[in-house]
């Protein structure tokens, strides 16, 4: 697969504050890449660098094979969609879409054709003569996407485009963006702090923290094999359970915490073999990987617990118990009857979990 966007050794500092250091990233043609992370992790900054809106302190940026590090945003072959839509308020939708093309000197027929194509794809034809003030949030965002579409570029950049919309509109537009990607097959780089958007839209997710990419992989891998504690805790709702304890290495690796012994047979260690000796570690198990009652008995590891809190979510139920003296949540179907104080048998397969070093946070 051909590389669409290539970022080499990118560094960015604001004065003495280093926001991004030596970041490398390759994005394939037609790929939907999501930059995911908490506020301040540098994802928007990275996007602005790719767009050319921010000047980098070091490194290079290539788009479609061309070195664009010193190019103006308009010459980079990109289109961008912003969180606040950033439509030109005094112009009609049609003028908003065509303004950039008119300035660039395109012929009238060409402009009309591009505008027509974009409005057809985004279903904004009937809105062409309206001004942004008379559009709903969802319509405005579609126009913003349209403005990027008419530019006929290879790469689209999205800077948290759905964050200003309410939950219902957000899920609607999310599906539309996915459909757009399937239809256009352009490379799309998408910034968000919402993990649901990331999981549903991405071909690959780059989770960022403090300017560094923690893990770059497809959603499935990120979800099931998070590369460190941060990623494991960031993805998944309700979040992964973390049990602190010691990992005893050797032929039969076991995770021990407050007297509870969890056999780690079948767990795929990073180097193939478990670390020797005893290492302080953290065992991570997702709440939905926990079985209850009879199903629990078939699991390699079982334990009993007393239910502390029950949270009925509607679609399922989340309950809190204690394992090895630490908080533990599990998820089950909403039909199952759970009561506070109830003693229940739970089980999980440690091989499906994740082990992390307590010192470095990395996956073992």
């Amino acid at each position, binding site marked *: *697969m051909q590389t669409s966007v290539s970022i080499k050794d990118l560094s960015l500092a604001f004065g003495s504050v280093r926001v991004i250091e030596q970041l*490398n990233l390759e994005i*394939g043609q037609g790929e939907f890449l999501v930059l995911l992370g908490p506020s301040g992790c540098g994802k928007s900054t990275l996007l602005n660098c790719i767009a050319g809106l921010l000047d980098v302190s070091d*490194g*290079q940026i290539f788009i479609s094979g061309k070195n664009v590090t010193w190019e103006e945003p308009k010459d980079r072959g990109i289109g961008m969609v912003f969180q606040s839509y950033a439509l030109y308020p005094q112009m009609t939708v049609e003028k908003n879409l065509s303004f950039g093309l008119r300035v660039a000197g395109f012929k009238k027929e060409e402009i009309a054709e591009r505008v027509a194509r974009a409005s057809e794809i985004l279903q904004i034809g009937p809105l062409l003569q309206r001004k942004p003030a008379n559009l709903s949030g969802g319509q405005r965002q579609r126009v913003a996407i349209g403005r990027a579409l008419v530019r006929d570029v290879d790469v689209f950049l999205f800077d948290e485009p759905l964050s200003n919309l309410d939950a219902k509109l957000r899920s609607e537009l999310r599906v539309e963006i996915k459909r757009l990607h399937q239809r256009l097959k352009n490379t799309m780089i998408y910034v968000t702090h919402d993990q649901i958007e990331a999981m549903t839209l991405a071909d*690959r997710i780059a989770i960022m923290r403090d300017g560094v990419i923690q893990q*770059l992989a497809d959603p499935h891998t990120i979800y099931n094999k998070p590369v460190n504690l941060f990623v494991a805790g960031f993805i998944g709702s309700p979040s992964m359970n973390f049990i602190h304890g010691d990992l005893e290495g050797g032929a039969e690796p076991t995770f021990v915490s407050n007297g509870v012994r969890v056999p780690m047979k079948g767990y795929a260690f990073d180097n193939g073999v478990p670390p020797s000796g005893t290492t302080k570690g953290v065992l991570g198990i997702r709440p939905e990987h926990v079985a209850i009652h009879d199903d629990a008995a078939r699991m390699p590891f079982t334990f009993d617990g007393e239910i502390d809190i029950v949270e009925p979510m509607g679609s399922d139920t989340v309950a809190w118990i204690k394992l090895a003296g630490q908080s533990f949540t599990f998820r089950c179907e909403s039909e199952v009857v759970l009561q506070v104080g109830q003693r229940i048998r739970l089980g999980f397969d440690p091989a499906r979990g994740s082990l992390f070093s307590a010192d470095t946070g990395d996956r073992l």
Partner: protein
Amino acid sequence: MTTDNYAIAGTPTAKAALKSDAETQGPRGPKPKRLSPGRIGVYAFLVIAALFFLVPLYVMIVTSLKDMPEVREGHIFNLPLRPTIDPWISAWTSACTGRNCTGLSPGFLNSVKITIPSVIISIIVASINGYALSFWRYRGAEFFFNLLVFGAFVPYQVVIYPLIIGMRYMHLFATLPGIIIVHTIFGMPILTLLFRNFYAGLPIEIFKASRIDGAGFWQTYFRVMLPMSVPITVVAVILQVTGIWNDFLFGLVFAGPTNIPMTLQLNNIVNTTTGTVAYDVNMAATILTAAVPLVIYFVSGKWFVRGIAAGAVKG
């Protein structure tokens, strides 16, 4: 935390392979900053504009330090050959307005006597007005407020004669209290607007909490709102001091012969054509008159800017 060289489709590629590309020789790092002609033009424009604004002040200062022979030579931009502060002393103590040759100092005193009470009273009144209009509205309040704001746009000359008659009727015409009242009257619209917008911008919850605590009208004002209104009060003070000190028209009409403010005296000194005109003294007198608001401006620069923007931006 690892920063591997992530390659296409997640398959690790030897770092060497990427680094050996010829691409690494291309543009890299921050864009080279060329001093473009556009940038030069911007600075040139701003510098020329700055010169335009500074020249009068420069000329005034420089002229006020020259003696008359040098002034007559007509090189207004030259620095004084024989700098002297005699013009300044003359201006302050012995410049003549008509038949009185007392210099500017009486005018200065009068201006102070006029400005300080006017500022204090007009701000107190406006602050209470703004407070009452924001939190304790009564039927008709909005009407009077709109009338007041309308008054802000009305040229003074439209109402000046009825005001004169009114003042005469109350034996306040050409008295110190009279001109203080006049300044208060004409300061009220803008200041009330300022304070009302400020109080309206405060969260209503503070007010409600105070009411729940049992505080009444005046208690809430003194204990809660007044302390919070320090920033806007500072702005209001700056605006009023500048406006009142610089006033000329009201001083001309309402001050009376015993309370001539500095601006009036300045005009009399400069524009009386008795004998030779002492330009250097005139310039010194002008600077002295402008000194007070100028000093306030330079000392409280950013508050002044905020005041102008705040006073001018209406709801």
